[in-house]
């Protein structure tokens, strides 16, 4: 008997939940007031709900189908798994997207799919959904399509005309890992597709000679995801891969997804509690690399086994092993130096730099800027405050370490 729409929605959203990406930000501003249609995007994304896993629900994240001819060990939809299978018709996906959108449940659609028949066939169906949403239904909300590395170039090109973001998952940080766990995937194909996508995005961003207008092509760029903790790769390896991906393909984001036990898991994989803290530290390190002027080498050097400190955030850990660089005088230090102080974010630093032009800053000023004094005090000098020998204290690390906690099995 054919499963009802509700049953299939349950299966195909369950199948999609291991993809961490949910962003609906970073695209162009547009709305439907001129077109009289439905939908808008206004720069920053909107999270319409949060699940008890703390993740934001911004897009309708579903699979077109969870039938898949690939057998990737870490994936709930691999061909050897016994999960229930289902598929939507393109019309059903379009209907769900529009009806959910009208009720303000979502910002748009994040569509992915298991590979059925061939890569091109699957990609074609996905592109059709995006095309009809845009052209038939005048939908101007956010669309994120997962593209399939082996799909033909003309399909990817068409996808970019309708989608805000395209992504291809690298899945694992090393070629060897991909070879072991996702034998049907070709790492060099994935890299080549990302490279082609970057070239296409750059080509379209050039104003045309005649009209001087830029064409819209995946305006929110491309992103990817790496699974953390399924293979033995260290944080150094993972972050090195991220740096390469950011540098090579102009990715907007690399998502880290702590490997989470899946129903009917492959025998080759650990059934463990997902390493959420590790995932969190990787995101912090990623931020330091992209917004705080840190090199990956600086963040990971001297770390045992190439792993980040789970107890301390990577900036604090770096500061504790570079005490000679502190304390920093917040009334004089350059922006680049201020960004390296644990407890200062980019906004705080901006606030400090603009405020200190008027008068010399004290601890009170920092407090009003929303800074946690306990965290920054050992590392800074300002009017009325010097840490004396605080930076040299041998128990400084202990001051920041979290209280020991009872461990539980799962």
């Amino acid at each position: 008997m054919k499963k009802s729409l509700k049953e299939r929605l349950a299966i195909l959203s369950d199948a999609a939940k291991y993809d961490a990406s949910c962003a609906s930000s970073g695209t162009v501003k547009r709305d439907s007031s001129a077109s009289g249609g439905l939908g808008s995007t206004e720069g920053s994304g909107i999270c319409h709900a949060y699940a008890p896993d703390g993740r934001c629900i911004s897009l309708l994240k579903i699979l077109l189908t969870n039938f898949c001819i690939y057998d990737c060990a870490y994936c709930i939809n691999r061909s050897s798994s016994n999960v229930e299978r289902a598929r939507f018709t393109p019309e059903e996906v379009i209907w769900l997207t529009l009806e959910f959108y009208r009720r303000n449940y979502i910002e748009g659609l994040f569509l992915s799919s298991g590979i059925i028949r061939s890569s091109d066939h699957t990609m074609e169906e996905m592109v059709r959904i995006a095309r009809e949403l845009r052209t038939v239904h005048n939908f101007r909300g956010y669309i994120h399509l997962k593209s399939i590395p082996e799909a033909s170039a003309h399909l990817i090109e068409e996808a970019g005309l309708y989608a805000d973001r395209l992504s291809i998952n690298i899945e694992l940080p090393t070629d060897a890992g991909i070879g072991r766990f996702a034998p049907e995937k070709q790492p060099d194909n994935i890299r080549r597709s990302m490279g082609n996508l970057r070239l296409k995005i750059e080509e379209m961003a050039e104003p045309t000679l005649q009209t001087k207008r830029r064409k819209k092509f995946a305006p929110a760029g491309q992103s990817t995801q790496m699974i953390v903790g399924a293979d033995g790769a260290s944080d150094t390896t993972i972050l090195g891969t991220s740096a390469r991906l950011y540098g090579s393909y102009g990715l907007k984001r690399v998502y880290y997804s702590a490997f989470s036990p899946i129903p009917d898991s492959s025998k080759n994989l650990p059934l463990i509690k997902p390493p959420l803290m590790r995932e969190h530290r990787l995101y912090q390190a990623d931020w330091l690399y992209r917004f705080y002027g840190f090199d990956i080498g600086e963040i990971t050097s001297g770390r045992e086994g190439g792993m980040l400190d789970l107890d301390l955030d990577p900036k604090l850990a770096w500061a504790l092993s570079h005490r000679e660089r502190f304390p920093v005088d917040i009334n004089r230090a350059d922006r680049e130096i201020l960004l390296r102080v644990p407890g200062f974010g980019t906004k705080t630093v901006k606030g400090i730099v603009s405020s200190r032009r008027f008068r010399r800053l004290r601890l009170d000023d920092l407090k009003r800027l929303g800074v946690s004094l306990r965290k920054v005090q050992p590392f800074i000098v300002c009017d009325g405050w010097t840490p004396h020998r605080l930076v040299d204290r041998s128990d400084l690390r202990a001051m920041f370490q979290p209280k020991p906690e009872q461990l539980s099995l799962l």
Partner: protein
Amino acid sequence: MMFRYSLRGRGDVNEWREAARGFMMAGIAPEYIEWRTMDDADGLFGFDDNRLPQPADPPPKISVQPSFIKLAEAVVCHSDPTRFALLYRLLFRLFHSRGLLNMASDPDVTAARRLAKSVGRDYHKMTAFVRFKELPLPEGDVGRRRFVSWFEPDHFIVARVAPFFQRRFTDMDWLIVTPKGSASWDGETLRTSDDPAPKPDLRDDTDDLWRTYYSSIFNPARLKVKMMTTEMPKKYWKNLPEAELIPGMIAKAEASVLEMAARQASEPLPYHHRIQEAASKVPVAPRPAAGTLAGVREEARHCTRCDIHCLATQTVFGEGPADAQVMVIGEQPGDQEDLAGRPFVGPAGQLFNDTLKAVGIERDQLYITNAVKHFKYQPRGKRRIHQKPNMGEIRQCRWWLTQEIELVKPRLIVAMGASALFALTDMRQKLDDVRSEPIAMEGGKTLFVTVHPSYLLRIPDEGQRRDELMRFREDLAAVQRLM
């Protein structure tokens, strides 16, 4: 003398602005004004006693920067009763120190920014958590669909957020009602009111599908309840159709993960075996014969002879006629070559092409390749910084270069740069010692050495660059004569 001034205080900046201007014109200091609103606890004040003082003579010129107006527009929406006094204090102080708003750590500036931020958050949460329910159209009516929502904002933001919903939900009629005002859209006019509205009784069957989605997208192995409640505080739950599921989802999470762990991996279904079998039968595309240029190119695609391969996007093999008379060898692919999979297509390639054209050589007569076939680089932020291949890597990659030379059998080989020269001769020589002269090689081939075009792009001094460009052009002209 003390002034009292009453405002409606429901998010309209203009009523405060008018009054504030009046007080400023008279030069009244903040401590002499008591601001009140209609909703003050000690009863309703009339607006009849609102009197503004006589302007000073001559009246001061009052001008205020747009950034303050923007801030004030947000702050007046806040429900904090002290907001008008705070704004007037800021306005008064701004009159004497215009840069005040940039003083991010000033107590008044911080307080105002905090209120604005909380209004901004309320705005954002309203755009996120309004849930529309559809009102069925009367039988036979095929007009615009109609939706209604009930929402409870903390502040007076309905009029502020309404245009957002208009921009987004243009093709449907909608009405949002809240205890702090309402807004509606009928396709032509956006109407707002600041009068409190009663809560309507609403239901919509699609909520059920949404709840299905909400509970299925949740991953019970990653329970992080605190993270959820920070972003979706409990005060919003009562108007969210999905929120009633939350307690049950949390309670069952651990059990469902344990159950998942306890279950043994099962044996794959026949579906899997059918696919595996079908996959094994898919005919593999015929490989080009070994010992041909196409064959070597195919082999090189999967080269793992040195460590650069997994950093680069792809092998960039040589291109050009298989029987070319002239082979040009560069150092290694760069950023653009790595993405495109073709040699000499980036900035250095552009310069190379231009120079070829200038001396009358057709690029497609040449076989163009590199000493090293993968791009070696150091990631730096959003860019890749080219790194010179080391001798070991060049030696490893010579495996491919030698085969290209053997198969193409060029009469003339042009080595551009020291790496190409090293790849051919295994000698580290100063380029200048061997440059610009045809050198006889074994097998009757001729070697011609010049610089790599990317060297020319890196010369900072303009005059020197012009000279070097000239020399490079003369070199290629010499190549043309040797062809």
